[in-house]
């Protein structure tokens, strides 16, 4: 669908399934409509174990600079503990063992984990089987690490959060953050679905606001809405307007689709004639990157990303350009489509060039030349072919790292940079965390464990296990 021809009249709002619509908006004619409501404790955006771990880390990252604040200590102690464990794990990921406990303490302090908290956080990593602490008497001899690198690590942490029996307030806080990170919510409805009384609800909002995780926005009608700066780049209005125009479930689904596949091309998958995505692009909620290909102009969509300092906006812009170019090669290349975008970018980071010359580099990666990220030279030994070279600057490498991170995780936690290698002086891994935003890779859960004997027996046979 051509976005320029789209009718931008706000659509009538359809009721969502299962009485889960919560908003009140006006039709084009201005008649008020009332909507169904979520029940007490029913959040619009269901949170799974993986995201529990991510949101716990968000709380830690948001609140780590807040030195002493009663409500967070009293009401979020489990969440912050798991958040600290997630942050430490994310930064140690790729290492095999740590023997310099003092250096680890320095690193932890930089990550907002005090010396008094470090042992407790390490014990949590032991509990989820990410580490073993070897001691000589009372002294830590070595911390042996088993932090997953090729699959997610957040699920175990989310499970552990559940095992710690978080309080009602704590649970509501995490779910509220997850909810408004997906789409802004009217304050009144958010409180109802949280199941909290006014005192505790305001307390959670206060904690969220202190950590720049949840903010209030008042629209022209004076209705307060809660949004998360985690997923709003600057002005929350476009996202709030989008949330007003479409059922919340549709907005959540559409934005999550883009978050899960950053650089989603127009016309592909969830971006194929999706009115929510089209409106999101037009209203500025989704950031499109345009690339001119042999088949015409292509647009690639990116979900909003909050909490990026102004100084790093240019890095985000470059990362999106890199990712759009790779997506173009993945979906629209005339020959030898890109099969594994993340592997390709990791190779580019390591070797600063691609192995072979190709005829389509100018059109596929021309955008990167204009953005001072790369240069493209003619292949002197092969007419019509070109070589690609990354411009090896600090900014470009950071952008490349961020692009890899966007590919692997999409919408990641708010963990800030702190390079464990600087503190520990240990070489990282090929699959190690990007330097700019360290995070755990999302693991695609393939299947459930077959439980019956016949199934396991057949499985072994088919796998080639020797009887």
């Amino acid at each position: 669908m051509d976005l320029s021809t789209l009718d931008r009249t706000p659509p009538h709002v359809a009721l969502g399934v299962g009485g889960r619509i919560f908003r009140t908006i006006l039709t084009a004619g201005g008649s008020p409509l009332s909507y169904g409501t979520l029940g007490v404790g029913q959040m619009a955006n269901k949170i799974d174990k993986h995201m529990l771990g991510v949101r716990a880390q968000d709380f830690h990252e948001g609140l780590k600079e807040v030195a002493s604040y009663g409500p967070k200590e009293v009401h979020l102690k489990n969440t912050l503990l798991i958040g600290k464990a997630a942050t430490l794990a994310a930064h140690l990921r790729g290492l095999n063992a740590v023997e310099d406990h003092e250096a680890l303490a320095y690193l932890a302090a930089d990550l907002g984990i005090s010396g008094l908290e470090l042992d407790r956080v390490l014990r949590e990593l032991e509990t989820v089987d990410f580490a073993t602490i070897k001691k000589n008497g009372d002294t830590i001899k070595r911390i042996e690490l088993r932090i997953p690198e090729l699959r997610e690590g957040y699920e175990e942490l989310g499970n552990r959060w559940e095992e710690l029996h978080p309080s009602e307030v704590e649970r509501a806080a995490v779910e509220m953050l997850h909810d408004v990170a997906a789409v802004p919510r009217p304050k009144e409805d958010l409180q109802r679905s949280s199941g909290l009384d006014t005192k505790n609800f305001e307390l959670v909002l206060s904690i969220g606001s202190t950590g720049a995780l949840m903010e209030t926005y008042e629209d022209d009608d004076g209705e307060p809405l809660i949004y998360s700066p985690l997923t709003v780049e600057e002005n929350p209005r476009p996202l709030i307007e989008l949330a007003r125009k479409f059922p919340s479930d549709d907005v959540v689904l559409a934005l999550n689709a883009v978050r899960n596949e950053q650089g989603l091309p127009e016309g592909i998958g969830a971006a194929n004639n999706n009115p929510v995505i089209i409106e999101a692009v037009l209203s500025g909620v989704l950031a499109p990157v345009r690339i001119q290909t042999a088949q015409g102009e292509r647009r690639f969509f990116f979900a909003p990303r909050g909490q990026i300092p102004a100084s790093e906006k240019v890095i985000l812009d470059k990362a999106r350009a890199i990712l759009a170019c790779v997506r173009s090669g993945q979906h629209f290349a005339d020959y030898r489509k890109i099969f594994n975008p993340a592997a390709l970018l990791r190779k580019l980071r390591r070797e600063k060039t691609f192995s072979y010359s190709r005829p389509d580099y100018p059109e596929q990666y021309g955008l990167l030349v204009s953005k001072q990220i790369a240069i493209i030279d003619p292949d002197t030994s092969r007419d019509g072919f070109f070589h690609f070279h990354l411009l090896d600057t600090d900014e470009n490498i950071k952008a490349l790292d961020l692009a890899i991170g966007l590919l692997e995780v999409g919408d990641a936690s708010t963990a800030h940079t702190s390079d464990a290698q600087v503190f520990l002086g240990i070489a990282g891994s090929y699959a190690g965390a990007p330097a700019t935003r360290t995070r755990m890779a999302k693991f695609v859960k393939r299947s459930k464990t077959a439980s019956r004997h016949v199934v396991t027996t057949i499985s072994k046979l088919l796998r080639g296990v020797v009887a």
Partner: protein
Amino acid sequence: MSSGDRDLGLKLRMRRILWAQGFYCPVEVDLSHYEYEQRQLMRQSLTDIDVLGLRFDPDLRAQAVLVDCKSGRESDPARIFWLRGVMDFFHAEQGFFVKRKVHGHARALAPRLGIRVLDEDGLGHLERILRADAAFTAFVDETRYARMEGLWGIDVPEGSKPTAAQVRVKNVAHYLQYLYWMVDEYRNVQSVIEQFGLVARDLQGAGLREKFLAHVGLQRLSLSLLRLAGEVIGRNVRDVPAQVRGYIFGGPLLLREREALFAAVEKIVDAKLGGEALTLEPPYYPELVEVVNKLVQYAPDASQILRIEEAVLLCRVFGHDEPIEGLLGSKPTSDAIVLAKRVALLLQKAANLPETLFAELHAL
């Protein structure tokens, strides 16, 4: 290798010589052939290997050396030709023919087949220049060796029948001793784990016999994982998960076949068992891939894990709490120790084995 054989002294000395050069020498290596007899799969012993030496380079390229030790009246040329054949079977680049006194025409023949001959003088010379004559004594401790050998397999009093549990354990020992060396290598990673999964309950006692079996199993699994990691490094280090998947399931073609088989069987199972999922990957597969990834990343340290495991077996499990540094010649790196433990944890958790089986290793 048998403690009752007259070549034992030579074999243990050769193990020590190879160990001094950085090799790892697995115990209980025998080649057998299997054929149907009276509607049963029967094992026919082909030959035993006196000493097999394996060494991994820092980039996990494997080297193998085979040793044939003889003190009887067998024809030297016949043994040398036989050794060449076994070397080819094991892809061994080098072989040693060891006999206290070697005939002249054997000395002329052996080098043409890539085999070195060693007589008593040659053995003594190697021991001196490698400083192996006084060191690494655990390797030539015949008493310790006899004790280990006596605990291999199961102990059934004469006239008694083995219990069902003993038969299960015997099958695992049988697998480690014979089948492991005969089946396609890619099948061994899963098979070792699954074999131990079948006897997890029988090993709960974690006595010395059970520990011996478990440590040999751990060494076999480590060997297979190192070979797998070496393949990954040699093929495409940038995509460990895809390389592991291709290897574990027998290569791209077999992988495709197995996927198709699973899809077909899943339909049947789905219909009959109410939608229970059937997966190609075993439950421990994600951790298996993580472990291989770590072996690839820390390949120089990974190349040492078999020697650490062997040192723990000899010094801690069968020794008197002797420091492993003495046997290894130097202090192992922390990363190598952590990797050895990680493989042990993989086996332990995937097969649901008691932690105490590897207590000596985890204590490092």
